[in-house]
């Protein structure tokens, strides 16, 4: 009868290990295999999936959900984008130092007056300029839609702005219908708002 030997520790612990090994190798082998393959499927699926859909740092584009913001308007009231869920929203970034922005402001005013009864919301976010500058500007053009004050370029950065003006047309379902970079003519604004309100 050939003898076998074992090292390390008592015979009991060796037997225990042996039992575990045998049970893993034997009856539950199928279960172990399936378990590992399922774990691989879930973890691997998550890894591949997050490259396809995740990656939060990608640029905003049509169909994506714009980041929320909470900003003060000129009267000192807080305005939040999520307050307007379910409505057609135009978010416009502007500054007094940018001539096409300045040109657009009265056009937005006319459009706002034209469509506000149908539920259009215009939020004009100033690009972190100081109070006096913004107040003087709004007084000069007599604007009625909310002018929001970004601070330290926080909101503008979260929207990944590259140039001004930039306008986001946001559908009632909260996703972006269109992003317009650069100035627009009044006709262009009108046409987009009309489309937005039909959605």
């Amino acid at each position, binding site marked *: 009868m*050939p*003898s*076998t*030997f*074992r*090292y390390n520790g008592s015979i009991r612990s*060796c037997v225990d*290990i*042996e039992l575990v*090994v045998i049970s*893993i*190798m034997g009856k539950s*082998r*199928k279960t*172990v*295999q*399936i378990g*590992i*393959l399922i774990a*691989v499927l879930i*973890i*691997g699926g*998550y*890894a*591949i999936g*997050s*490259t*396809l859909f*995740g*990656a*939060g740092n990608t*640029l905003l584009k049509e169909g994506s959900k714009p980041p929320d913001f*909470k*900003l*003060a308007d000129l009267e*000192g009231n*807080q305005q939040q984008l999520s307050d307007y869920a379910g409505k057609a929203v135009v978010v416009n970034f502007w*500054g*007094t*130092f940018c*001539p096409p922005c300045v040109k657009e402001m009265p056009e937005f005013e006319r459009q706002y007056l034209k469509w506000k009864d149908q539920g259009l919301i215009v939020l004009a976010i100033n*690009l*972190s*300029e*100081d*109070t*006096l*500058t913004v107040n*003087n500007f709004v007084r000069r053009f007599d604007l009625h839609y909310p002018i929001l*004050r970004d*601070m*330290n370029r*926080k909101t503008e*950065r*979260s929207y*990944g702005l*590259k140039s001004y003006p930039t306008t986001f047309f946001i559908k009632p379902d909260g996703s972006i219908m269109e992003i317009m970079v650069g100035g627009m003519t009044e006709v262009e604004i009108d046409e987009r708002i009309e489309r937005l309100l039909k959605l």
Partner: protein
Amino acid sequence: MSVLENTKCECGHQNAVGTVLCESCGKPLENNDSPDLPLEMRYDGVARRSQKSNPNIIDRIWNFFSSVKIAIYLIVLTFLTAMLGTIFPQENTFINSFDPSFYYEDAYGLPGKIYYLLGLSHTYESWWFIGLLVMIGTSLVICSLDRILPLYRALNKQQIRKHLQFIHRQKTVYKQTIEGDSEQWVEKFGAQLKRKGYRIHTEGTALLAEKNRFSRWGPYINHIGLILFLLAILARSIPDWQMDSYITISDGDTVQIPETNYFVKNEKFTVEFYKDEELPEKLKGKARAKLFETKAVLYECTSNCNDPKEKPVLAEVKRHNIVVNDPLKYKGLKLYQFDFDLTPRLNAVHPVLVNKVTGETYGPMDLPMKDSALQHKLGPYTLDLYANYMEFAIGDDGEPTTLSRDPVAPAFIFTVRGPGLAPEGEPYIYFPMQKDKVRFSQDTLNQAISDKIEIKVDGMENVDFSEASTYLNVRMDKALPYVWIGATFSMIGLLMGSYWQHRRIWLRVDDGQLSLGAHTNKNWYGMRSDVAWALQKIGITVDSKSLDNGGNNA
């Protein structure tokens, strides 16, 4: 496939299907290989888990990933695709958002466009590259599991007296007739091997000497480490586990770290350049930075944090001088010195008002470039701020305007009331910077009032400006400890597996005829010299090279 295969060895041991060498006595079970070649000793000839008759779909997937060949293909495929990713810069090398669809074509023409369209501009984030890594991970798990248990079993119950065929077909073999008492000879030989660090097990005239068995677990520990490492990297995609953003702070400013409750103040940024005498000839006269440092203070916001109307309440939590290679660290948050900008920025001036007629001076007043008080009272004068401009210019319509929002060429328009001025006030435009005063001819713009009063700054002590801005990189990575744990495991496994080798010597003496066979998983040279050394010690001189039984080095 035939269902029954006789896997019972002549020693009586029942082996599993796929067994190459009898698990008990080591006799080769497969008779179809050539009898002269050394034996295939991998995993001690034990059946691997995946080797099974009648595989079903799960077995097939399992078999696929348990194959070393597939693992090699995966590794090769991974490094080939990784090469492709280095042809042009990857998208993530650009810090600010830019539009890659134009960039690659602009910068590299048609190849750039193809590169972008194939998705190679973000190779390492692409689904197929991650897919390859996932498959390597799977292969690591299954390959290891498939081998480690059978190997453990084989090594844990070894028979001392091996079949003669097993011994003679080792890669290192020695045969000799010996005189005298066999058992005594075996004992003496064993004693010599013991001096080389072998554990000796004898059974009559049979001997098994073994050392460094632990090194067999090295590759598996290494693989476990790699799996941990890969999982840790994967964990970084869990929301809030990782952050990477850049902030710019001018001297004296406090800036919120995006998406956190933390604020950072840059108290002072300093840069030191190498002096000319420290530089070799070629670099003289060039500004080569020696050290740059940001005196930074980290605050945590305690209330009014995201209230746009109120100033946030800040509590200091950490103070550190950030230099390259020495970030500010606080609760997993790290602020690295990234870059700097030495363009000065005007923050505020403290000008005085001079009555040009009497020569009397009033003030100074505090005039920050941004959000100044709207009314300033200086002696008998009242100044109402009417408008301010950051980069003053006259627009196309002849109206004053600003070209940017940074205080590059600031201007302030006041309505001034006071002695000798019209009761409703007179406008006065003030340029804090001397160069702008001249460029826009402040006195001409102000006309008559410029003879009556003047607003001016007395000395540099009344000018408050930031000399520089620092660029900090804000990082957070909660998976980091796991990354290091994985790397450590992997390294320990590698060292175990590479610098120690599992060596075994079997011998038996049958009627004065010594048969010795030795096996190692690596480094045959060392194996042979061990055997030759021990033989030498008991008086048998043999050239270690002559022990080689041919075949290839595994």
